């Protein structure tokens, strides 16, 4: 029995982007079905259609054989479809129970909530899966693995028979991933159908029964896991022999440019987020700070780039103390920053590409004189960058809002690499963008390092870290727990440090 089918689904967005083109696939009841593809291949769109967040422009969906119109998440849930999103949809100040039962709160009398019943219902489901969730704690402070379980419980409690997981392992450590897969296998044994979207091919090989590959808004094919290899999947995803190797020659780093000493930081909610962090960065090297989301990287980057105050310790740029200074000063002294969030921080969506490119230098020559802002110069620079960085847009006048994720990120990267900075701090620079743009950006980072810049890379993407870093620091719960040279390192070893299972007794080598 086919649990859910897409039949010739096409989705065209109002801005003209074709996200799904004649997509047909079917998922068997009781199987684990993986959908793989690069960012922009159309898998997330298809899942949004399954879950009623988007409506197809044409085509049909069938659930358990019946053609259906899913026009809202409410209807999807009613049909037995549940979704666990990549970025958790939880209300931070609510308790676990309130989050799980949101919208289906058991009632006591006419108006009030029956909190006791909530506890009962959740407890039942949690026991079935051998989960342990702190029902009355506020979701705000819980670790990521627990949050994911809450999301799964949310779906199950509403009677989900088809569970869709969108990039579930992107925030988990290798060990937590194993736990998750254990849960999924148990669910499948209980009759659930599981669909999950990912680009982690090794995991796909681990758990999926069948694999659908998508590329350029179309389905390339559906394959049995036993009949296909990782390399083959990749080739189908990209359509050409994919070059994994980004050439990185060994180089001798130069002088120390940035020194961080005993950086200690308590967040406004009291959490001790950074504990005596110390390291130095040299010109001509790429130093990566690896670690899972939520171990202090965000705050570290914000402190280094002047976006967060009240940290203690020292930050020296070429010997000069710069802790706590405004981004105005930091940029002047040579720190560039590729931020994690390109939409909220890296760009101004309603300004043009050209105006975005010079936001850090609009006040100096040639873009401005003493008073006058020279628009023509700004446009010329924009044209140059569009060419050099291969940004797909009509002209520098185009609003950044119209660009795809990868092109938007290229605008950000272009700005930060052309401002004569000595230090480039790149925070998740290829997060959520297509492979071609990712490759371009990683190559640019290496180019910067070859030109003598000091690059600090913060990334949760282990592949990326292993690909381009010279040295690696692992940040765990606010502390540096490992310092590794990137030679003959493997993913799992790194994973142990990132999970805090292992830590170097004495941090080796000069930081």
């Amino acid at each position, binding site marked *: 029995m086919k649990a859910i089918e897409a039949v010739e689904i096409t989705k065209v967005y109002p801005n003209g982007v074709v996200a799904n083109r004649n997509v047909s696939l079917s998922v068997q009841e009781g199987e684990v079905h993986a959908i793989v593809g690069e960012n922009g291949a159309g898998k997330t769109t298809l899942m949004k259609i399954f879950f009623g*967040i988007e409506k197809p422009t044409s085509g049909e969906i069938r659930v358990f054989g019946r053609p259906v119109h899913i026009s*809202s*998440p*409410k*209807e*999807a*849930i009613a049909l037995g479809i549940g*979704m666990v*999103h990549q*970025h958790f*949809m*939880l*209300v*931070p*100040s*609510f308790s676990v129970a*309130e*989050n799980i039962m*949101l*919208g*289906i*709160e058991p*009632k006591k009398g006419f*108006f*009030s*909530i029956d909190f006791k019943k909530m506890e009962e219902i959740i407890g039942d489901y949690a026991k079935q899966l051998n989960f342990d969730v702190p029902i009355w704690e506020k979701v705000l402070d819980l670790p990521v693995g627990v949050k994911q379980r809450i999301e799964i419980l*949310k779906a199950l409690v*509403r009677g989900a028979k088809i569970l869709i997981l969108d990039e579930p392992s992107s925030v988990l450590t290798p060990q937590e991933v194993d736990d998750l897969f254990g849960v999924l296998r148990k669910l499948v044994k209980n009759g659930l159908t599981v669909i999950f979207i990912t680009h982690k091919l090794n995991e796909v090989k681990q758990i999926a029964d069948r694999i659908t590959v998508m590329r350029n808004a179309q389905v390339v094919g559906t394959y049995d896991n036993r009949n296909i290899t990782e390399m083959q999947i990749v080739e189908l995803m990209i359509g050409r022999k994919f070059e994994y190797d980004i050439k990185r020659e060994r180089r001798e780093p130069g002088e120390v440019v940035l020194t961080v000493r005993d950086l200690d930081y308590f*967040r*406004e909610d009291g959490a001790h987020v950074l504990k005596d962090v110390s390291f130095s960065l040299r010109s001509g090297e790429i130093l990566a700070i690896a670690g899972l989301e939520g171990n202090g990287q965000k705050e570290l980057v*914000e402190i280094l780039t*002047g*976006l*967060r*105050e*009240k*940290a203690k310790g020292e930050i020296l740029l070429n010997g000069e103390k710069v802790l706590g200074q*405004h981004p105005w000063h930091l940029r002047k002294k040579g720190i560039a920053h590729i931020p994690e969030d390109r939409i909220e*921080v890296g760009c101004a969506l309603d300004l043009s590409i050209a105006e975005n490119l010079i936001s850090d230098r609009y006040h100096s020559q040639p873009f401005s004189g003493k008073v006058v802002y020279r628009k023509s110069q700004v446009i010329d620079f924009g044209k140059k960058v569009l060419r050099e960085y291969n940004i797909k847009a009509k002209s520098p006048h185009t609003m950044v809002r119209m660009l795809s994720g990868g092109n938007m990120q290229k605008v950000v990267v272009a700005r930060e690499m052309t401002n004569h900075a000595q230090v480039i701090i790149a925070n998740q620079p290829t997060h959520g963008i297509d492979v071609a743009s990712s490759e371009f950006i990683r190559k640019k980072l290496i180019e910067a390092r070859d030109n003598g810049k000091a690059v600090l890379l913060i990334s949760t993407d282990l592949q990326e870290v292993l690909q381009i870093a010279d040295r690696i620091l692992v940040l765990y719960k606010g502390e540096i727990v490992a310092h590794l040279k990137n030679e003959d390192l493997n993913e799992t070893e790194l994973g142990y440090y990132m999970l805090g299972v292992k830590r170097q007794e004495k941090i080796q080598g000069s930081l």
Partner: protein
Amino acid sequence: MSDFLNPQFWYSVIRVSTPLLFGVMAAILSSITGTINIGIEGMMLMSAFWGTIIASLAQNPWLGLLAGIASSTMMAVILAYFHLKLKTDLVIGGVALNLLSSGLTVFLLYLITGDKGSSASLKSAVIPRLDIPFLKDLPFVGRVLSGHNVLTYIAIISVFVVHYLVKKTPLGIRMRAVGENPGAAVSVGISVYRMKFLSLILSGIFAGFGGAFLSMGYVSWFARDMTSGRGFIAIAAQALGGSSALFGAFGAILFGIAEASGITLQSLRIPSEITNMLPFILTLIVLVIYARSRVRSHSRIQEQ
């Protein structure tokens, strides 16, 4: 100073706080879903107008009350429609509606009564007062709490109702979810659109009560722009209390004290302009205290 020991003063405080209490409830109900209703001022004004006009024409205060609430709710519907459906900016929409209300009420006032200043020429009907049987005989407390307008008692009760609604009912939880993380609400099938619409309507209803009190309880006529900034003061008072109706009510009473003190001070020959300034200056001070006391974010980049 001895005035503060006078039960008459506190009676006055409660009376004067009534429209503010309604206003704060209106502000809370809209802001928990993240849709701050700037138009409370205009909605109160519209309700004050229609309330007393219909009450006068029908010689029935309750019909007037109904009409007033209907008019303010209709304005809320317009705001909701323009913001949620047509994507007008919420603040601009609220400001526009305030202007509309101000102009329309004067226009219609002139049309109906031939007077641009007030409707005093009409024989009005007012909402009655209530003497509460046992309460009124209590010393001090009786003088303070008994004998108020029916709407005042409704205002006090509604504080508790709203508090309970927001914290302990499914509707309240869903509204708060929509305000804090709309994505979470969507993921469980709650219609963000519907919740926001509903919250604006509820806001309009409470604003309607407040306005009706002004023209049919506080005084018995409509005067142009008679809300005099109360809607905005209510918004400021709500900012104090967040999603707690009890704290918000506390804020409203605080401003009521300021206003009542102003009236008392006037009898001491302090010019009316100075005393009229008091509630607004107090709001300003409260705003500053509140802003300073907020958990000072360490993050430059995380703005509210």
